């Protein structure tokens, strides 16, 4: 072989080796050095994070009735890059979704990959639409499953349940306070799509299952809630008050059995509701409680030994001049014991008991009954009310506060305060959530909680006996009686505080808070009517609120199957019902 030939072979070999070395080097560069970068680009192109939505937990009443459920709906969207026959597709979509065809065509024409056509489309519509698309071989429109919250009882219990915002976060009621339990946690899955956008199951990567929300079982009994709502609805319709509140509580456990306010709203349509109607007035409204507050001073004075069961207090024949002002009773009374002071609802008798106790001690009992503090109910927005310390009182406060003036409390506080008497002296924490139940059946029960012992059982029983007298002949709330049962309670009539200061003439907040059966109370119920459109002569707690209590208690006794313990008596129709019956007859 000649030298030149050998040289050419060597050069060719070197060139070949060099070429392979370059290609190999490039491959090593791509596979090793650039591995992370190209893997990321490939993953971005094909891999996507698929969200596995968690189901929101249900809200149930104490018997398992569903109060808030999830309704599956779809978000319909188009991927314009997959659409071949835009005209036919837009006609079909517009027909099923109730949109204008021009509107759909315009959206598709923008060429986007995620064009939302309509949200909250019902399941059956989507199924029909997809069937026709498949039949006509049209593609490019997809759906994403979503769900909306539905409240089957409409406005009933709306204030307690609350509602969700557009991000499916609770913004009011139980939906808000129990958000962390109800919401659950969305899962996810990394997976890849083929060129048609379908998931390639084989290439599923990291995956985390969704943690579904827990169900919340409330202490509410929908049977009692329906009774309560029907009665306050009738009151709201007939008496046209500014607001009506009613709360029913189990005094032994603090469980809220029913809670309603008027005006109310439908949580299915929060957007179209007036914000004023969305307030749960049982926990966010402050009112002067009126005479229902007299139980505090009576209990305090008895417990502190300032008076006993036989003590006689001179009630000044209805006019008590103190600190330059005259305190009056509706009817003049002479000497009365504590029992009679409560039965006759003497302002002067209560003022004198407070004077015997002194401001500091009386204030201490007001606070021990739970007034001036948040009771800690699992509902948002609860206010503490307003109880000034004795250092900020004027000379008249000590005679006005015992009859429920110069103090502002929530309807819930009044109900829980009366529960102290009903259960033998303990202030219970109001409980609205009975249990939190996981999807796997685990149940976390919420236990009744005693906040504090306010008064001993003996004092509570004495006050309870006096409160039973309130509904008997000669008491202020005879219309609160229920056939077959011993009812205990207290009326309240307070002039409404004017927005301009002072009291608004002719406007009253009337209430009755009572319990039944008095010997072994199954429920405490408050009815509060704010500014009923009725003559001042009839606008008293004993005439307006007590009959409503009576009707609620009578129907509740049937619902709870309570055993009657008292003989039947002929009950007089209350004057307001008689008034409406007479009006009805003349029409």
């Amino acid at each position, binding site marked *: 072989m000649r030298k030149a030939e050998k040289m050419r072979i060597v050069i060719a070999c070197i060139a070949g080796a060099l070429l392979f070395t370059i290609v190999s080097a490039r491959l090593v560069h791509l596979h090793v050095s650039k591995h992370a970068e190209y893997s990321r680009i490939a993953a971005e192109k094909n891999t996507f994070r698929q969200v596995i939505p968690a189901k929101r937990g249900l809200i149930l009443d104490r018997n398992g009735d569903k109060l808030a459920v999830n*309704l599956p709906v779809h978000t319909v969207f188009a991927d314009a890059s997959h659409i071949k026959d835009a005209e036919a597709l837009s006609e079909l979509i517009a027909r099923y979704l109730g949109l204008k065809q021009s509107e759909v065509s315009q959206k598709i024409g923008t060429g986007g990959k995620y064009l939302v056509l309509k949200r909250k489309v019902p399941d059956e519509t989507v199924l029909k639409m997809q069937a026709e698309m498949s039949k006509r071989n049209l593609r490019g429109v997809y759906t994403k499953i979503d769900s909306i919250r539905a409240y*089957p009882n409409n406005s009933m219990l709306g204030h307690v349940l609350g509602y969700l915002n557009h991000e499916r976060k609770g913004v009011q009621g139980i939906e808000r306070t129990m958000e962390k339990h109800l919401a659950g946690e969305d899962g996810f899955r990394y997976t890849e799509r083929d060129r048609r956008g*379908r998931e*390639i*199951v084989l290439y599923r990567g990291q995956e985390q299952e969704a943690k579904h929300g827990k169900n919340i079982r409330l202490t509410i009994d929908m049977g009692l809630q329906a009774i309560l709502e029907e009665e306050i609805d009738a009151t709201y319709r007939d008496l046209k008050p500014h607001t009506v509140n009613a709360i029913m509580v189990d005094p032994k456990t603090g469980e809220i059995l029913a809670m309603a306010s008027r005006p109310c709203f439908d949580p299915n349509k929060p957007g179209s509701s007036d914000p004023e109607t969305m307030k749960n007035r049982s926990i966010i409204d402050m009112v002067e409680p009126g005479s229902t507050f007299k139980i505090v001073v009576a209990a305090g004075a008895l417990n502190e030994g300032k008076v006993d069961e036989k003590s006689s207090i001179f009630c000044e024949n209805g006019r008590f001049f103190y600190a330059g002002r005259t305190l009056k009773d509706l009817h003049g009374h002479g000497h009365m014991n504590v029992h009679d002071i409560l039965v006759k609802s003497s302002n002067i008798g209560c003022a004198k008991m407070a004077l015997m106790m002194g401001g500091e001690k009386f204030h201490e009992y007001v606070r021990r009954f739970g007034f001036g503090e948040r009771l800690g109910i699992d509902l948002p927005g609860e206010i503490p009310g307003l109880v000034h310390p004795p250092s900020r009182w004027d000379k008249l406060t000590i005679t006005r506060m015992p009859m429920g003036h110069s103090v502002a409390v929530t309807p819930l506080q009044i109900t829980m305060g009366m529960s102290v008497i009903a259960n033998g002296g303990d202030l219970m924490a109001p409980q609205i959530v009975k249990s939190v139940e996981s999807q796997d059946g685990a149940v976390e029960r919420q236990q009744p909680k005693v906040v504090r012992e306010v008064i001993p059982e003996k004092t509570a029983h004495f006050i309870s006996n006096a409160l039973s007298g309130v509904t008997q002949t000669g008491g202020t709330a005879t219309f609160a009686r229920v056939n077959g049962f011993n009812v205990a309670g207290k009326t309240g009539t307070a002039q409404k505080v004017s927005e301009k200061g002072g009291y608004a003439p002719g406007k009253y907040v009337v209430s009755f808070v009572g319990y039944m059966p008095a010997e072994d109370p199954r429920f405490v119920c408050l009815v509060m009517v704010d500014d009923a459109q009725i003559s001042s002569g009839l606008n008293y707690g004993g005439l307006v609120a007590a009959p409503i209590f009576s009707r609620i208690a009578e129907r509740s006794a049937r619902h709870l199957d309570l055993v009657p313990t008292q003989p039947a008596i002929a009950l007089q129709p209350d004057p307001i019902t008689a008034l409406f019956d007479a009006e009805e007859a003349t029409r």
Partner: protein
Amino acid sequence: MNPALQPANPQTSNPIQAANLVKFVALAILLGAIGLAYVFVKNQQFVLAEQIRKTERQIRDVQSRNEVLVAKVTELSSRPMLQKRVSEKFIAVVAITGDKIARLTPPATAVADGVMRTAFNSESAQ
């Protein structure tokens, strides 16, 4: 001259070594079979994955339809709806008379007349 170093006579010797050929053919068949099996298994995986996807979709559809039905049942059996049906006279509520109520614990009667009241529906008894 060593006979082993003599060039083979094409007419008396076989240049194809059968044993080696068989080995290579067997190896090729084996590799081919492995390749085909890999393709088959991969294909099966895709088919099964597709079935999984379809089944998951069916399950999701059934669950979603079930939820729709549960919501409908809840709505139809809700108190306002039942109340509406009663007022429209689509359904009627028949009061249960006291003598039809079976009690685990007999109710205590009232002291004076021994008549059951509250839970006893006097109107329907007449």
